[in-house]
């Protein structure tokens, strides 16, 4: 990005203060007025950039709708969360009646048989 070449005969010349301040201000107003006509109504730059990057990268970047979305898809997150909650409640409602009441289990130790070593 540094392809600037310095013109050979450019000298260190006057600053703003050496120019007539009123005239300079008038010129600047004129310049801004003239150039701002072309700079009004800023377009949607982001969409165009995403499209160009998607095309030129062969779909490597901005390939899906999620990455090109301007805002986080809050509604999608909410619907997905509620759906998952409903599925879990349903599963619990179906499985819970199938489970019986807990029963006591008596733990009896198994007798130990000692085997004598072979001679």
């Amino acid at each position, binding site marked *: *990005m540094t392809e600037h070449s310095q013109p050979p005969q450019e000298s260190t010349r006057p600053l703003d203060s050496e120019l007539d301040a009123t005239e300079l201000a008038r010129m600047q107003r004129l310049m*801004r007025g003239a150039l701002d006509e072309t700079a009004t109504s800023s377009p949607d730059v982001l969409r165009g950039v995403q499209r*160009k990057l998607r095309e030129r990268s062969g779909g490597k970047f901005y390939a899906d709708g999620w990455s090109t979305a301007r805002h986080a898809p809050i509604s999608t997150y909410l619907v997905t969360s509620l759906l998952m909650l409903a599925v879990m409640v349903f599963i619990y409602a179906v499985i819970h009646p199938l489970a019986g009441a807990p029963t006591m289990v008596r733990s009896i130790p198994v007798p130990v048989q000692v085997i004598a070593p072979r001679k």
Partner: protein
Amino acid sequence: MSNTPTDESSERRFVERLQNHDERAFNELVEAYGPRVFRLVARMLGRHEEAEDMAQEVFVQVFKAIEQFRGDSKLSTWIYRVATNMCKNRSKYLSRRHEDRQDAFDAIAEHQPLHQAKGVTSGQVNRPDDMVEGMQLEAIMRQCIADLEPDFREALILRDVENLSYEEIIQITCVAEGTVKSRIHRARTLLKQRLSLALGENLP
């Protein structure tokens, strides 16, 4: 944009995300700098339809070249540098094509002396005839700016329209301070001469 980096460390983290080609970070970058870059390129090229395409190309170039960003300057300055370089190249290309720039200029039948203009632009007047005069003056001014050499036009717009400091202009243009000041002075002088000539006013 609330999540635009404000201090040095957060900008560094943000640049790291960009260098990792984080698409969300790049979206934030375009959202934050898109309008400013569009305004700059529109002013430098003087054409709305060209500016929209050019602003997009600037960010595509930023996306491709972000790994070369070393952090020697602010990210915004670096983006401005990319934008101004691309605008200068496009201007050179367009000027070679000799498009129909002269037509609008020739269509202005009546001229108003510069000393009577007093910086009137179409946005500042109410009467229809004043508005027409203002629009004519703006058209002449646009033409005179467009006729400047790309280096002079760049310096003039960055200083007098974008209102950037000399330090920022030096970083953007990568030329010495003396050269920047010289270009600005020369651009102002040339602009005044050409404007006076176009308005049929004798120079002092």
